[in-house]
Every structure is written in structure tokens, then in C-alpha cells.
């Protein structure tokens, strides 16, 4: 009976309808103080294709909180190339930048996407590129265009072409998923009936290390995203957790309890050549490498309460980093190595904070009651984290100055422990 095709099909359909792979939708909560007004004109010939481009570029830029979209309706004809632009049309609408483009069909089903970013005030071109792509790649193309616009107008690298990883839970089913930074194109990396936790991207973005409880205890795995092939890299007696990659991708720091306590170890990324880093009587865990690879920040209760410490790998000297409050955990370096983001607990509430390493100045970025698991965007401008919404985990992001906030909501499932992936290799 179980194998009656129609019933089986129905069961499969129910599985497919499960919320695990539900689209993450993004709500923008705050806004930056000085938003750049930009007009994005629908690209020429865009309506001939099911997936648009200009709308995705606009959504990307708006989501950063640094841009304000200027309405382009009513301007006719709509410019698709530089000679057609009448700058007064745009300056009177308050636009300082203008994005135009067109899609030109080529033989073989591919298209050429051309765009120009223009400075409305100076009446000059800031950037102009052409991509030859398949119409299926329009979202990726739009993210690349948004990256170009973002960098041309803010001076910082755009992160719209990056990926995020996170853990979902729907019923008893845990999934490690990877999606585009805007929540689209979610793909399942691994599925388990036991908890999955602590996803960590390799520096090149091709592998993810994570912790799985499928063997009735925490075990660290490394999985290649392209092939799906994975290997068990730390499965010692006791608990194995908190993987962190060295910036060169050669080493993993992990927390192991095999010798008693929760202690930090360093090993090759395939699990060989394991070496204990420190010996403390209590908890040392969740190491994270500095961008130069020379030190690690980690959480330890050696002083009585959990605080962030820094270990120099050359000297093996440890110094305390956080001093405010009685609970500071989960530190991650900013990409420039000058600050850390971490979780602090005060009055039972977990919130996300950043600390400048030189001045030790702390800024609290969020005001939820269970905000945790922060990770910096690879340009250091946003922090992605886990928030709580009525007992359910959701993903949220905040700009590193605390001004712009976003929530990424997936209907029906619990989404936790996000990790922002690295910049793509060939932007």
C-alpha cells in the first residue's frame, strides 16, 4: 500500500510543499541617514524575458539601506543608452545617479546585457559594462550590476553576489541550506533527523564545515558544495564542535572534549595533524581566526564568566578582550581585523554588539531578546545574525553602524545560525 503510486505521489507533494525550502523574504526596518538617490530605468527589452534585471538591482540597493530609489515612471521615451539620456529629466526628480541598460538577444539563446551608471550632477559615466549570459542567469547578472553600482557610489565592495548558509528546522527535519544573499535560490546541502549546527564557510566558499548530531553526539564534517561529498574531520570521544577555518583554508580550529573539558585544537582541514592549542580547566570554545591568520578570538569561562579572549598563535599568549558585562560569547573578526562582533547577555537578553579592538569601545547593535550567532558580510558593512520571533528562529541583518536593520523571514520554519559566505572568486 505504501508503494501505491498515487499515494506516494501525494506524499511526495506534501514533502515538496514543506516549508524547509520556503523563500526567505526580506523586510527592511531602518534606513541609513544619507541615502543616495538613484533612478533605475527598466532595461530595454527586459519585458521579453520572464526574469527581469532592473527590479533585482533596485531591491539589492534598497536592501543595503544606503540608497533611495527615484521613480522613473512618466519619462518617455525611457533611455536605454547614454545618447538618449536627458539629464534635466533626472536632476529635477532629485536623482544623483542613473542606471540604464538594455538586453540584446544573441544567436544560441544567450543575451548581451549592457548597462551604464551615470552621474546626473556631473553628467558623466561612472561605470559601464556588458555581460553575455543566459536569461536563466539574470538574477546573478543583476547582483553583479548591483555590486558595480554599490562600489562606484559608496567606495565599498558590494556583497550582493555572495551566499549565506543557515540551518532550518521543520518538524524533526534539520537542513543546512545555502542561498543567495537576498534569500533566493535556497539549496539544501545536508538533511538530518538530528540537529545540525555551526556552519562555517571555507575562505574560498567551496566547502562548509558544520556539526552534525547524526551519530548521537556532535561530530564535525566538511562538505564540498559542488559535489556534495563530505568527510568526517573530527569524531573523537566526547563532543566535537565549533569549526573555524584559517584564512588560507588549510587548517580548522575545533573544540574537542576528548581530553576533558571543552578545549581548542588546531588540525589540517582533512582532520590530520591534530594539535592542542591551550590548556584551561574549563571551557575554551568557538575560536575564530583573525584575517591575517596570526591570532584567534575565542570564548572562555576561565575568569568565572564567559568572555572573549585572544590567542596569539606565534607566542601562545592569551589576552582578555571583553570586559563589560558578565556574558560575552561568539566573537567574529571584522574583515579588516580591527573590530569584533559578538553576543552579549544582559538581564537575560542576548544582543549583538561590536567592539573596536584598539579602543575597546563597545557599541550594541540590536535590541532583540535572543539575538545571536553574528557573522560579518565580507565587506564588513552588515552583520547577519539569528533573531527570535515568537519562539521561532529568523535571520536578521544590521548595518555595522546599527542604523539599518533587515529581517529575513521564511514562512513556517525555524531558521538559525546564519553564516555569510565570502566574496565570489571572480566578481
Amino acid at each position, binding site marked *: 500500500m*505504501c508503494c501505491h503510486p498515487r*499515494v506516494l505521489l501525494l*506524499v511526495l507533494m*506534501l*514533502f515538496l510543499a514543506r516549508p524547509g525550502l520556503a523563500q526567505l523574504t526580506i523586510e527592511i526596518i531602518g534606513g541609513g541617514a544619507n541615502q543616495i538617490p538613484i533612478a533605475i530605468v527598466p532595461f530595454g527589452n527586459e519585458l521579453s524575458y520572464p526574469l527581469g534585471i532592473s527590479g533585482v538591482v533596485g531591491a539589492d540597493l534598497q536592501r543595503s539601506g544606503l540608497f533611495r530609489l527615484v521613480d522613473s515612471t512618466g519619462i518617455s521615451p525611457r533611455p536605454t543608452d547614454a545618447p538618449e539620456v536627458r539629464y534635466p529629466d533626472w536632476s529635477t526628480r532629485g536623482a544623483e545617479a542613473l542606471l540604464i541598460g538594455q538586453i540584446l538577444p544573441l544567436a544560441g539563446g544567450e543575451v548581451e546585457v549592457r548597462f551604464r551608471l551615470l552621474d546626473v550632477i556631473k553628467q558623466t559615466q561612472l561605470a559601464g559594462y556588458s555581460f553575455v549570459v543566459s536569461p536563466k542567469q539574470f538574477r546573478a547578472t543583476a547582483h553583479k550590476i548591483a555590486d558595480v553600482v554599490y562600489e562606484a557610489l559608496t567606495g565599498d565592495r558590494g556583497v550582493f553576489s555572495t551566499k549565506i548558509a543557515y540551518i532550518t528546522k521543520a518538524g*524533526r*527535519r534539520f537542513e543546512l541550506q545555502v542561498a543567495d544573499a537576498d534569500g533566493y535560490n535556497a539549496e*539544501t*546541502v*545536508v*538533511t*538530518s*533527523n538530528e*540537529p545540525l*549546527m*555551526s556552519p562555517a564557510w571555507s575562505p574560498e566558499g567551496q566547502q562548509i564545515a558544520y556539526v552534525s*548530531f*547524526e551519530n*548521537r*553526539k*556532535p*561530530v564535525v564534517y566538511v*562538505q564540498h558544495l559542488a559535489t*556534495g*561529498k*563530505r*568527510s*568526517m574531520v*573530527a*569524531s573523537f*570521544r*566526547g*563532543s566535537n*564542535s*565549533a569549526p573555524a577555518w584559517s584564512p588560507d583554508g588549510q587548517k580548522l580550529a575545533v*573544540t574537542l*572534549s*576528548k581530553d576533558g*573539558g*571543552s578545549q581548542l585544537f588546531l*588540525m589540517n582541514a*582533512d*582532520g*590530520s595533524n*591534530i594539535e592542542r592549542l591551550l590548556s584551561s580547566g*574549563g*571551557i575554551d*570554545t*568557538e575560536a575564530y581566526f583573525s584575517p591575517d591568520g596570526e591570532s584567534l578570538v575565542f*570564548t572562555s569561562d576561565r575568569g568565572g564568566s564567559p568572555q572573549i579572549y585572544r590567542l596569539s598563535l606565534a607566542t601562545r599568549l592569551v589576552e582578555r578582550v571583553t570586559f563589560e558585562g558578565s*556574558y560575552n*560569547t*561568539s566573537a567574529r573578526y571584522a574583515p579588516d581585523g580591527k573590530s569584533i562582533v559578538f553576543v552579549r*547577555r544582559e538581564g537575560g537578553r*542576548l544582543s549583538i554588539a561590536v567592539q573596536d579592538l584598539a579602543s575597546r569601545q563597545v557599541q550594541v547593535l540590536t535590541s532583540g531578546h*535572543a539575538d*545571536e*550567532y553574528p557573522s560579518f558580510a565580507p565587506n564588513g558593512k552588515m552583520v547577519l545574525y539569528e533573531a527570535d520571533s515568537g*519562539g521561532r528562529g529568523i535571520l536578521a541583518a544590521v548595518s555595522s553602524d546599527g542604523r539599518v536593520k533587515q529581517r529575513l523571514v521564511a514562512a513556517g520554519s525555524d531558521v*538559525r545560525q546564519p553564516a555569510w559566505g565570502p566574496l565570489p572568486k571572480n566578481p
Partner: protein
Amino acid sequence: MPKFLPALLASLLLAACQSTPTTTAPVDERSTAPGTTAVPAASSSTPAASVTSLGINPLKDPNNILSKRNVYFDFDSFIVKEEYKALVTAHAKYLAGNKGAKMTIQGNADERGTHEYNLALGQKRADAVKKMMILLGATEAQVETVSFGKEKPRNPGHDESAWAENRRDDVVYQGE
């Protein structure tokens, strides 16, 4: 017949869940690190000498303290409270008298902390009970301690009673 459909579907879904492999990704066992300790598989053999003269397994006998398997902790604490010392002592004596018996102590934490730190806190709770058992005659090789942190709450609630239930060690004998 149609009114049975939801139940039928539910049972099929359950069956489908259970028959789904735990993981879908292929495991490359060859790349397992040299020197790693093999995961202690749930052995089919029952612990040696676990049968009393009455023929009742003391680990399962509801009248025997050995059937009690939970040690509860205070908030942010890993101190074994006085009320659990008899339970821990009984299990330690059992291990001392049954050298073939092995157990895993699974530490857990409530949700009011961060993921990895709570995993370490659960480990500390499991280690605290293990330490007592070793002092009372169990051997190192008989007791493995692991932690589930806050990832496997027994009570999914968000109040003090749920948290109290989730700050816990579970004692699980090999084969159970």
C-alpha cells in the same frame, strides 16, 4: 474511507520520515582523519551481568534507582545537586560491579545562552557527573560524556519550567 485519509497520510508520512536516511549526502569514509576514535556504535550485546537473581534488569526496574537517568541543574550551573548524589552513586557502583558496562552521559542546556557556549556548558554538566562516578569506582573507559547543548530540548517551551527540564544530564547505557 475518505475520513481515514488524514490518518493514513500521517502514518505514511511517518513511515516516509523513518525510512528516510538520516543524511542524504554521501560520506567519504576514506577521508576520515587517521587517529580518530571510532564512534561507539550501539552494540547489540547487553551489559554484562546485568540480570539480578529475580530476572529483572536493574537498569529497567522502575523500583530500582538505576532506572532513574536524569540529573537536573540550576541556571548556568554544572554543580551536581545533593538530591542527585544517590542516583549518581548507584550508577557508579553499577559500573564498578559490571566492568563490561558502558554508558554515555548526555549533557543539555536551556535556551538562554548561545549555541556553542551552551554546547560547552552541557559538556561541563556531563563531565561533572562523570567525575563523581570515577571517584566512586567507575573507570574512564566506561563513561563517555557528550553534549547536545540547547539543540535537543526535551521541553520546547520558553518558560522556567521548560528551562528547568532542559538543564539536564541523561544517562544512557550502551545498547539502549
